C-alpha cells in the first residue's frame, strides 16, 4: 500500500465516529461582520499605514505623476523598476531611468537588487488592517518586483479600498499569486519589539488617490 493510501485509510479509521451521512460539503454559516468600521475608509487606511511607519500622501488623480516624481526625487531614486501595464503618466514625469520588467523579458535578480526602487499599482487594499494586496495584474508585475528593491512606491486608488478583510477575500482570485503587504518589512523577534526594515523593502511609500473633488 502506498503512503497515500495508508494515510487516507488511517484517517478514515480514525473518523469511525463520524456519521456516514454527515455531508462533507456544506454552506458555511457566516455570523461575523464584513468590517469593523472605525471611520471614513480612506482615513482609516491612512492611519493604519502610518501606524506601520509607511509614508502616505493623499493625492488627486491628475497629480499622481507629479507626486510620484516628487517622492522618487526625495528618495534620490534614479533607477526605478516599472511593471507592465503601469499607466505611463504615473512614471514618465519622474525623470528617473525606468527599468521595464515583464514575465517574458524579466530583469535579473541582480538588476532588481541594483535598482533604487519600484513603482507599482495594487489590486485591493483593506482599510481596517492597513493592507495593500498585489495580484500580479496590470501595473503590479512579478512578485519579486515589490520584494527585492529596498524602496516600494505604491499607488492605491480610492475605488480599490475596502473596509474589512472579508470584503477583500471575496474580490481576490486565489489562482493568482498574491502578496499582502501591511507596512514595510518588520520583525518582532528581538524581545518582541517591532523593528521596521529587514529583508523586504525597508521603506513603503503610498500615494492614496482620491476622486477628483
Amino acid at each position, binding site marked *: 500500500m502506498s503512503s497515500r493510501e495508508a494515510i487516507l485509510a488511517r484517517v478514515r*479509521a480514525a473518523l469511525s465516529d463520524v456519521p456516514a451521512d454527515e455531508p462533507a460539503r456544506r454552506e458555511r454559516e457566516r455570523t461575523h461582520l464584513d468590517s469593523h468600521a472605525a471611520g471614513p475608509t480612506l482615513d482609516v487606511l491612512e492611519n493604519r499605514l502610518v501606524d506601520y511607519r509607511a509614508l502616505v500622501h493623499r493625492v488627486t488623480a491628475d497629480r499622481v505623476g507629479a507626486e510620484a516624481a516628487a517622492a522618487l526625487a526625495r528618495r534620490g531614486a534614479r533607477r526605478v523598476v516599472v511593471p507592465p501595464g503601469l499607466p505611463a503618466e504615473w512614471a514618465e514625469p519622474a525623470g528617473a531611468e525606468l527599468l521595464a520588467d515583464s514575465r517574458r523579458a524579466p530583469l535579473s535578480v541582480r538588476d532588481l537588487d541594483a535598482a533604487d526602487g519600484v513603482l507599482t499599482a495594487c489590486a485591493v487594499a483593506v482599510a481596517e488592517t492597513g493592507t495593500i494586496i498585489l495580484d500580479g495584474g496590470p501595473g503590479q508585475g512579478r512578485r519579486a518586483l515589490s520584494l527585492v528593491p529596498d524602496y516600494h512606491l505604491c499607488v492605491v486608488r480610492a475605488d480599490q479600498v475596502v473596509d474589512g478583510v472579508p470584503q477583500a477575500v471575496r474580490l481576490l482570485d486565489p489562482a493568482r499569486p498574491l*502578496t499582502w503587504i501591511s507596512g514595510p518589512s518588520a520583525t518582532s523577534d528581538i524581545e518582541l519589539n517591532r523593528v521596521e526594515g529587514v*529583508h523586504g523593502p525597508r521603506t513603503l511609500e503610498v500615494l492614496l488617490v482620491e476622486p477628483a473633488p
Partner: protein
Amino acid sequence: MSSATFLGMPPFPEAARTAVQDSRLRHNLRRATHTIRDKRGLVVGELGDDWARLRAEGSEIKTHTLRHLDHYLEQLEESVTRAGGHVHWASDAAEANRIVTGLVQATGETDVVKVKSMATQEIELNNALEAAGITAYETDLAELIVQLGEDLPSHILVPAIHLGRSQIREIFLDRMAEWGTPAPPGLTDDPRALAEAARAHLRERFLRTRTAISGANFAVADSGTLVVLESEGNGRMCLTLPQTLISVVGIEKIVPTWSDLEVFMQLLPRSSTGERMNPYTSTWTGVTPGDGPQEFHLVLLDNGRTDVLADTVGRQALRCIRCSACLNTCPVYERTGGHSYGSVYPGPIGAILTPQLRGMGSEVDEALPYASSLCGACYEVCPVAIDIPEVLVHLREEVTGRGGHAGEKALMAGAEAVFSSPGALGAVQRAAGAARSLVPRHLPGTAGAWTDTRDVPDVPAESFRRWWKGRDDEREDGR
C-alpha cells in the same frame, strides 16, 4: 555546524526546576510574554463582540474539516496537481525527510534556504539534510539566531524568545562568519542594528539559492492555494526567488475553501504577533509561469496526526493554527520557558499535542499533561477555542490508567518547581483556581530562597500609604 535536538531532554519537572533558577531567562520571558499579551489584548478588543463570532467560526471550520479530512485531502491533492504542483504523502518523519532529501538532490543543489516551519522542525529535517550533505539555511531572524547559536527553539512564533538583545549580539558576532557574511565588527545590541546585520548576512544567500523549503499556515482544498504569513520578507524571498519550492505541510493545515481565509486572516495575526495584520502574507496556487518557482512540491505529513485524530477528545488539538497565544498567556510557560517541554511544540498546546503525536511512550511525554495548573487562560485566548484543560485532564486519565504513578510524581514535582515561593503563590492563586490543591502547604521561609526562582516585583511609582495620604489631602482641599 550540527543542529541541536530535543532527544534526551529530561522530563518537564526536572527541566522546569533548572529553568526557574535562571534569572536572565525569567527576565527575558517575562518581558516578552507581557509585551505580546498586551498587544494582543488591544487588537482583539478592537473587534468587540465580533471576536467571539470569528473564534466560533474558526473553531467550527477546523472541526468540520477534521471530521472529513479524507475528503479534503483528496480535494487538495487534486487542486494542487491541477495547478501544476506535485503532491507527496509522508507517513512519518523518516519518510518526509527521505522525500525532501530526494527532491533537493534531484535539483543538484547542496544549499537550501528555509522559511520558518514547525513541521520541518518536528521532523528534524535539517539534520536529515545535513546527513545527505545538504546545508539548510534558516532565514527567519529568530530561527537564524537559534541555528547560529546551536540552540533549541523555545517558542512557536519567536523561537529565540528566551534570548535577550545582548545575547543575540554575541551570537551574531561569534557565529555569523562561519555561516556566511560576518557581522559588522562594531555591532551594537540595538534591535535595529541586529536586524540590519541579519539582512546583510542573508542578502547574498537569498539572491543566489535555487531551492527553498517552507511550511504553510493554511492549505486551501478547493483552490489548491498555500498560504504563508510572515513579517520580515524572508518568507517572500524563499517563496519567490528560487526555482524549486518544497513545502512540508501537516495534514491538519487544510481549510475547505478560499473564503474561509476571511476568518483565519483575522484570527491569526491578532492572536500571534498582536498586530491587525502581519507585514507580509504570500499565497500561491501551484506554479505561475514566469513568476516565482517553476517547480512546486507539496509534502503532506502525517507523523502521528492520524493517531491524534482517532482520539475524539484529543482530536481538537489538530485545530491549532500555531498562533502561540496560549504560550504567551500561560503562567507556567512564563516561568519555565519553552525548552522544559522537551519538544518543538512548547507551552499549553505542546503539553497536549506532543504526547499525542509521539504516543506517550516516554517519561518526557507522560509528564507533559501535568505541565499545567489547569487555570484555563490558554482556552480563553485560543482563537479556535481548543479546550486545552479538558484535553490535559483526559491525557492525565490515560497516564494513570496505564498504572503509571510516574505521572503523579511528576505532577507534585512540577508543582514544587514552579510554585515553590510566596511570590509565585499570589500570582498563581489569582490565575489558577483549579490548581489550588497542588500548591505545597509548606513554603520555604527565607526571602533568599524565593528570589532564587522569582523576580522581585516592579516597584510602583507611589506607595499605597502615600497614595492614601494624598487622597485625604485632596478631600480636605474640598476637591
